[in-house]
């Protein structure tokens, strides 16, 4: 965890860790894991709200809890940039982490695989592997997606690759 800012570190220590090592094909053990995922997501969301740092919405898109959809946003120069967020729980979960996707900015940055999967290879995957099975979805958002947004969105905005939604509508009105 060297190189991480103290804020992220202290947030991380407050997200409840998980204990069940089970993937979506493991039946009742997966249900148990899913409960733990919910608990840690609830705790993380509550924490973000109380710290005035609310930055995502995520919920299971199917009853099995293998597909998740929602939104995430990032504030840059006092403007809020919001994106759709989606991911599947891989069959080999939790040995392999979920691949977080931002489909709206697919193809706009090099730090992304096809289909809008953000690049987690260097900054997150080794960390996930070392902490398997204790890390869950909440940890992936906190340590995978949040730093990616912080690093990429300012560059994408400044280079004009993404525009704020108000700018887009005002130009179309002209």
């Amino acid at each position, binding site marked *: 965890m060297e190189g991480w800012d103290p804020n992220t570190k202290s947030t991380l220590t407050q997200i409840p860790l998980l204990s069940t090592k089970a993937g979506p094909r493991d039946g009742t053990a997966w249900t148990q894991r899913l409960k733990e995922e*919910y608990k840690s997501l609830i705790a993380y969301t509550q924490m973000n709200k109380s710290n005035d740092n609310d930055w995502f919405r995520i919920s299971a898109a199917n009853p099995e809890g293998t597909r998740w959809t929602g939104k995430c946003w990032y504030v840059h120069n006092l403007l809020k940039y919001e994106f759709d967020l989606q991911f599947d729980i891989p069959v*080999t979960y939790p040995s392999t982490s979920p691949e977080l996707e931002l489909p709206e900015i697919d193809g706009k940055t090099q730090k992304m695989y096809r289909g809008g999967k953000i690049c987690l290879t260097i900054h997150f995957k*080794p960390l996930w592997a070392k902490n398997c099975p204790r890390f869950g979805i909440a940890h992936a958002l906190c340590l995978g997606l949040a730093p990616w947004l912080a690093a990429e969105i300012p560059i994408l905005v400044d280079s004009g690759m993404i525009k704020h939604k108000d700018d887009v509508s005002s130009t179309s009105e002209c």
Partner: protein
Amino acid sequence: MEDGLKDIIDDLDSLKRSLPDPSLQASVLQLRLRVENLTRMAKSGPVGRPKVKDMSAEVVDSNPYSRLMALQRMGIVENYERIRDFSVAIVGVGGVGSVAAEMLTRCGIGRLLLYDYDKVELANMNRLFFRPEQAGMTKTDAAVQTLSDINPDVVLESYTFNITTVQGFETFMSSLRNKSFCPSKEGSGVDLVLSCVDNYEARMAVNQACNELNQTWMESGVSEDAVSGHIQLLIPGETACFACAPPLVVASGVDERTLKREGVCAASLPTTMGVVAGLLVQNTLKFLLNFGNVSPYLGYNSLKDFFPTMEMKPNPQCSNAVCLERQKEYVLAKPARDAAAKAKMEAEMSSITECPLHDDNEWNISVVDDNEVHTAGVPSADALPEGLTRELPSADEFEKSLAPGTDASVDDLENLRRQLEALNAD
């Protein structure tokens, strides 16, 4: 197209007849000749060959298998035609997978199953196999198009989905189980799975499927700097599975998880990919047709032209539960294996007629058993040389399963779901 050209010729003929001016006749004649040329070219264009019922060893120009069947005459392969009974699944039809598929197709493999969810892009053109006009097609469709032209005898099945998702994985498993091609075959419906994927997640998914199906497979990979690669044979329970020891950890000390994928612009060379595909298919042929030694692991370092080989035993503390199950089965089957090996040895021994090795022994040379002299000094397999100690305890307790949450009363899944939704609402 031929009909269109014929119409033009007819039109030209009638034009020629109706032309009053003979000075224009020559140019009309020239036009007619050019159209005739085009007709000939169209006729000689790509025509697929018909299917071949039996592989023949007859040496004629029109026999697509004469050079392969010659392997029998040379004493390399006992029965080459068996290749038509085999099914091979290739997961990942990229720089390595597509070339491996072409090689197996040209070798006349019975059935090929191709898995990939990507599309052909112009950025792939620095590698072999795909052509620029195929850009935009799915890799599986483009591969089937080319391969069925090259060898119509091969049964090709293409699967276009991501095997790491829950649904994709189930489809992947059932396609491997399907035995309609060769119903008499034991185990799964394929003889070998070749992993030619470019990321850790997909490799882990192939590993999981093969461990569950007790399916032998081979893994291949090319480094992101495009100058080294490896192939590895994985027999569930007998050799290390992919989760036991990811190959790059062994080869270079690099954590496999830090490997980048194609999308984030890794380097690639047609040469390295071709070499690795060649090594992979060579090992496949040796495995299927039973000749030579099948390499358990073969590395390729192109900068130094270094080809390391090694064997890897399964990890008794592997994180994959199915791998541990397979390991147990393998250990339990040891007496049967030993008996079979002994019977084979005896059969071989009995075939050699016994006679003294040397008729005379002018210098009275005799062989002395040297066991007694050395046994005292030979350390047991586990002992370390003097001066070395193990950093970690040698008999580490297998990772205890973490106690699952005990407060079952409060956590109803539906309740938790509602709690999160409530938080999401405001």
